[in-house]
């Protein structure tokens, strides 16, 4: 039990931190700046604990906690690390962001911590209803964060769209769980696996239907085609740090649980390969096409998030169910998180009051005024585009390698084609920043140095992650 608790320590720290922050925020003297430092501290501590358990406690890969409802594996630890790091950076960049945008209260940071708790649970959950509850914890917290700027109708619209469609997708999840429960008699992954091993997938249509509906919810959260439409609007409506948080931590959690779910049984995964194949291809291409036409940076990044979901789906298609380590997925998520979060962190101090700078054109000539920020953004963009020597390239390389190794050559090639297509809109921002004359001075100083520092650290991460060797 102590061992169990030790493994759950990061979750407990984050959860407790969230509650403490929530309570603390009732005191008037507890400013949102303090809350920012507090939540960053909570995330940092949790991150370090997680890291130490990653390094030291090489527990059995599938050590069960709490009756098989939660399972801690190396994969979930890695995903947890990413989530916690994202949380920490989000907290810090939010502090900078809210220096200039005046709608924060300390609960904001409490909610980021709650969301992180939900995400951590999601990475570990091995039981459908727990997955659902974790999903909802995460989602509800994020809904609130999205709509945090209550005075802003855009923000409210975003939360409406997200909440409505999220709840809609959640309903499918519940229905799917019910069907799986009907077939297997249990909602625990272990039991489902045993049932599938005994009966085989094809002989259980209910199982197929249930898994199908469950995947719908995952695909929705991951913004895969055709469940992608919300993502552009919601990212656009949310404030920059929240968008960054959503784009990275949430996606990490979703793909972690998605992978965990898919690898319950080889037959389960195999059944969906064709579907996921088409979905990932369509996701990549539709995402790209949406991204091409965008003028707003956030919307472009949202659409590019769709594309990256497509790449991750390739990894899911190619993932081996035996000896699942999820290293490729985790690596890609880490690489993607570092670069995406980096951009949003940079935007959080470059965006101006009320996010006045939205479009590509607004960032023209940034390189002259803010060379380091522009360089950092360029590096993040190149990483997202998959140009070496950044982490994004290695992530893409691993995904392609695993896809080809799994015999999915067509998928790999389509992934490549997609990343060719995506090159334009990443380069577009670099071109705007570097090759155009400035239309304004960008002379307002960064409201605080936290976000710039985070940006710098994330640049280092982008390169450092690329050097970290993993096994496919």
């Amino acid at each position, binding site marked *: 039990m102590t061992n169990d608790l030790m493994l759950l320590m990061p979750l407990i720290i984050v959860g407790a931190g969230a509650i403490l922050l929530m309570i603390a925020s009732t005191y008037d003297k507890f400013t949102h700046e303090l809350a920012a430092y507090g939540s960053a501290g909570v995330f940092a501590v949790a991150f370090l604990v997680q890291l130490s358990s990653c390094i030291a406690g090489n527990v059995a890969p599938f050590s069960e906690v709490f009756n098989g409802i939660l399972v801690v594996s190396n994969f979930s630890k890695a995903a947890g690390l990413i989530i916690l790091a994202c949380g920490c950076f989000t907290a810090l960049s939010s502090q900078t962001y809210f220096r200039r945008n005046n709608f924060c209260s300390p609960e904001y940071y409490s909610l980021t911590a709650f969301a992180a708790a939900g995400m951590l649970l999601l990475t570990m959950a091995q039981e459908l209803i727990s997955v659902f509850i974790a999903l909802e914890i995460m989602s509800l917290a994020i809904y609130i964060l999205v709509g945090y700027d209550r005075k802003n109708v855009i923000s409210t619209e975003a939360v409406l769209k997200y909440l409505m469609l999220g709840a809609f997708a959640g309903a499918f999840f519940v229905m799917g769980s019910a069907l799986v429960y009907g077939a297997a008699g249990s909602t625990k992954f272990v039991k489902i696996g045993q049932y599938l091993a005994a009966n085989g997938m094809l002989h259980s249509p209910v199982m197929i239907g249930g898994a199908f509906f469950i995947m719908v919810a995952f695909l929705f959260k991951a913004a895969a085609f055709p469940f992608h439409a919300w993502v552009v609007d919601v990212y656009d409506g949310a404030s920059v740090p929240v968008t960054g948080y959503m784009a990275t931590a949430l996606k990490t959690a979703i793909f972690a649980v998605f992978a965990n779910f898919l690898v319950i049984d080889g037959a389960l995964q195999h059944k969906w390969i064709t579907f996921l194949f088409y979905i990932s291809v369509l996701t990549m291409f539709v995402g790209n096409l949406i991204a091409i036409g965008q003028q707003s940076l956030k919307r472009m990044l949202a659409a590019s998030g769709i594309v990256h979901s497509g790449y991750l789906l390739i990894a899911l298609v190619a993932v081996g169910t035996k000896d699942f380590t999820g290293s490729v997925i985790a690596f890609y998520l880490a690489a993607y998180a570092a670069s995406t979060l980096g951009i949003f962190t940079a935007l959080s101090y470059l965006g101006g009051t009320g996010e006045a700078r939205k479009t590509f054109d607004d960032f023209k000539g940034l390189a002259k005024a803010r060379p380091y920020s522009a360089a950092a953004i360029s590096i993040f963009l190149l990483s997202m585009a998959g140009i*070496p020597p950044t982490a994004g390239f290695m992530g893409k390389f691993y995904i392609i*390698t695993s896809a080809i190794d799994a*015999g999915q050559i067509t998928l790999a090639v389509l992934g490549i084609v997609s990343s060719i297509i995506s090159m334009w809109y990443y380069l577009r921002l670099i071109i705007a920043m570097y090759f155009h004359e400035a239309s304004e001075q960008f002379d307002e100083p960064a409201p605080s140095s936290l976000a710039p520092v985070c940006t710098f650290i994330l640049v280092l991460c982008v390169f450092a992650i690329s050097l970290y*060797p993993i096994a496919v």
Partner: protein
Amino acid sequence: MFEHVLSVIIFLPILAGLILLATPASRSVARFTGLAVSLATLVLSLDLYAGFQATGHLEFVENIPWIESLGISYALGVDGISLFILMAGSVLLPLVYFVFGTREKGYYANLLLVQGAMAGAVCAADMILFYIFWEVMLLPVFFMLGLYGGPQRLPATLKITLYTIAGSLLMLAAIVYLGVSYHAQFGEWSFAMDKMAALNLTGRVAAVAFFGFMIAFAIKIPLFPFHTWLPDAYTEAPTATTFVLSAIMAKIGVYGVIRFVVPVFDLEFARFAILLAYAGVIGMMYCGLAAIAQKDFKRMLAFSSASHMGVIALGVFCMNIQALTGSIYQIVAHATSTGVLFLFAGILEERTNTRTIDDLGGIAAKAPVFALYFAIAMLASVGLPGTSGFIGEFMIVLGAIKFNTAVGVLAGTTLIIGVCYMLWMFQRVFFEKTASRSENFKELSLVEGLAFLPVILLIIVMGIYPHPFLSKITPSTALQFAQPASVVAQAPASNAQNLGLTIEQK
């Protein structure tokens, strides 16, 4: 000679470039740093050259495992083929700092970056490492072109970048395919270049992978009909970039063909060689003809460069040792001659503020040294015997005749086509009456003159006494043709075939 000399050659410029970028260094500091670093690299390269044994195999090997689970390592080494491209870069790049003294910091920093990356691409002995450097070398070009290029630079920048990246990403897929095939056939992961020759690749996917490589290299070279990015990019780019693109980067495309396509896809290559050879020849003629229609001397040189690259590529596709060796020799010859020509074009542009041929005239009278240097480089470019250009071109045509008579005869027309536009341009720019634009054309300064002198001498020495150079190249090229046979002998055919099929059916 110390152990990690290649790493130093690669990373010294890269580090210097990054440091320059990251610090608010002044222009002159940047220029001086660039000059110092590139000269240091030159010294190291000369040392390397002196120590090169010409065994035909990789020398100065460094190998540090990186991603062991996939057999990826930080592996470097040079053989006779890569050595000369490396040398071309090391010898030529210091010139830029002599010639252009008043550019911005980023100009010099990017130049350093691209120098390191190109050295890396040439020295890499691991495919992934190669790919990394291959992509990295595009980035400085992107920035230099976009930041310091001519008025129409943006479309040109986009075109070259997207075009090249499209090609290289396809190559990435092909590289991964090779690695996976190696894993399937030999049971271990490896991305080492020299091991790939042992692969037995058949079937549709192999052909696709072959084209994955070929298209990437064809774009970089550029081979007809993938050359359309070239005129704009070469014309709009700042001179140093054009110089780098034409003198060295294009050659790395050819190098890639020699390194990857020829040994690994020997079957596919033999099958498509005639097609590719025609692409080379047609490209040569097409670009050569287009060159005559140019009014802008830089664009004319761009087409000229593309035309010559067609011949060089042809040499690789002819599959005999004379043509291949000729190609490599021509790579160096063309790097020196075209590189110098582009630098001179830059000087012309800078001192006359025009790129239009018709605006100029009579420069030979104003600047005899400049004209002499230009003429020597031009004559090397048209392949006059006694200059470096002849040896390679002759061997390529010779080899092409052996390969296919029609191709050979067409390849020979480069003798005529090249001379037409070059003389035409030379006549208008250097001869005739002095035009108003060139009235005050300043002769090369003493420093510039001395800086170019070694290269000009090299052009002549390489034409008159090429034997020492060739004797370092030939062992490696000979090995290229020896390899397929030995592999066939080593690998049990049936076994390999089965494994080859499994990967396809998966």
